[in-house]
């Protein structure tokens, strides 16, 4: 059967992508941030998965206000990097895994999560910046990401966004879906976005180190408790765009120390191993957080 071996959490700031694409990673402003991902790139090479299930949000790119799906799973063969107004990022197309994605859609919908199924969309910085941070820029000689990716887009743009609890429960259902897939695939699940930031109004620029570190601590050790945090606490303490952090709870809910699925048909196992933790302020308007957790 397929198995989730690890989860990765990282912010997905567009300026990070621009810094990589424009060769600015050694500049004093950016150097401390990229240093925090050096270990992660090595870890990725040593723990190359067969598939990445990548939870992110679309930033008014593939989804306008014509349609606003709360949870959307990509079941396509391939996804193009989007032109977000500055031209598309010079990164490879994202290769999908339609078989596993359709299997997960079938299983998760049967578990009462009403996903939108997407067969055609471009992917924006929310998806490609985490890939760049974890995998580095693919060389021209082998211009491809290291493995297929299943994009999973969450609406965190228009309120109300899904609650932390709902996201955590969804993670449990995704794990159950993966573990009922026959092929023995090594799957990683990534939760992206955050940490504290606000991009609008006179309160723009808000950063809250205390909240962010509380979130990292509890995501590791008390995810079920953290999942009960109401939206308003994110808005007040982590900024209006800090709400993206609910997406990290989807990845965390899929880890094997959490009881599996809505019916908890498999009890929670040993806690995951914290392989890496990093926090840095700022990247443009945003606090950057990053964790790697391995299942035991």
């Amino acid at each position: 059967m397929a198995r989730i071996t690890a989860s990765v959490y990282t912010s997905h700031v567009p300026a990070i992508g621009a810094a990589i694409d424009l060769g600015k990673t050694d500049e004093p402003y950016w150097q401390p941030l990229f240093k925090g991902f050096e270990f992660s790139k090595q870890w990725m090479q040593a723990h190359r998965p067969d598939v990445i299930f990548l939870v992110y949000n679309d930033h008014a790119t593939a989804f306008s206000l014509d349609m606003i799906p709360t949870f959307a799973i990509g079941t396509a063969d391939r996804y193009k990097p989007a032109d977000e107004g500055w031209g598309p990022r010079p990164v490879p197309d994202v290769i999908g895994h339609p078989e596993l994605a359709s299997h997960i859609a079938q299983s998760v919908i049967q578990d009462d999560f009403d996903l939108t199924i997407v067969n055609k969309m471009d992917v924006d910085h929310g998806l490609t910046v985490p890939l760049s941070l974890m995998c580095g820029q693919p060389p021209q000689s082998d211009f491809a990401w290291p493995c297929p990716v299943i994009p999973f887009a969450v609406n965190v743009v228009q309120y109300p966004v899904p609650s932390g609890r709902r996201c955590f429960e969804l993670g449990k259902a995704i794990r159950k879906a993966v573990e009922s897939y026959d092929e023995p695939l090594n799957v990683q699940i990534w939760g992206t976005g955050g940490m504290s930031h606000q991009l609008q109004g006179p309160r723009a620029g808000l950063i809250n180190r205390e909240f962010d570190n509380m979130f990292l601590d509890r995501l590791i050790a008390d995810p079920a408790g953290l999942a009960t945090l109401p939206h308003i606490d994110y808005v007040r303490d982590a900024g209006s765009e800090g709400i993206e952090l609910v997406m990290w709870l989807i990845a965390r809910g899929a880890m094997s120390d959490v009881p599996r699925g809505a019916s908890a048909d498999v009890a929670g196992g040993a806690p995951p191993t914290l392989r890496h933790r990093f926090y840095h302020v700022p990247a443009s308007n945003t606090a950057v957080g990053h964790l790697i957790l391995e299942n035991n």
Partner: protein
Amino acid sequence: MPLDKPYLDVPGTTIFDAEQSRKGYALNQFCMSLMKAENRARFKADERAYLDEWPMTEDQKQAVVARDLNRCIALGGNIYFLAKIGATDGKSFQQMAGSMTGMTETEYRDMMVGGGRSVEGNRKIGEDGDAQAHRQPQGRQVPKEGA
């Protein structure tokens, strides 16, 4: 029965909820149209004529022409959509976010490098943080050249 909107008392912050989204539908879809190069060119050539193709309110059109992002947001705009106007103008997200505070670009960048805006005094309307209405606009307010 009114809906629960506990976020209305966060200072300097407009939550893009279903009500704002409804008000801002045409404004935000106009922004989306700027993702196409040919539309950006048409908009730049004659902003007013381009805006008049959209069923936006006069207030919304004027806010766009003035690049008053706070006003755009009050009228239903969302920052991820409004960012397309910034991209058309060659502005970064940081320049756009900073423009809503009253700070100069340098002042805002320095604030971020210094660790960002503190949440203290900025959680609820009525406190005394720098995002509160009685402390706007922010920054040193150096008079513009020629002003």
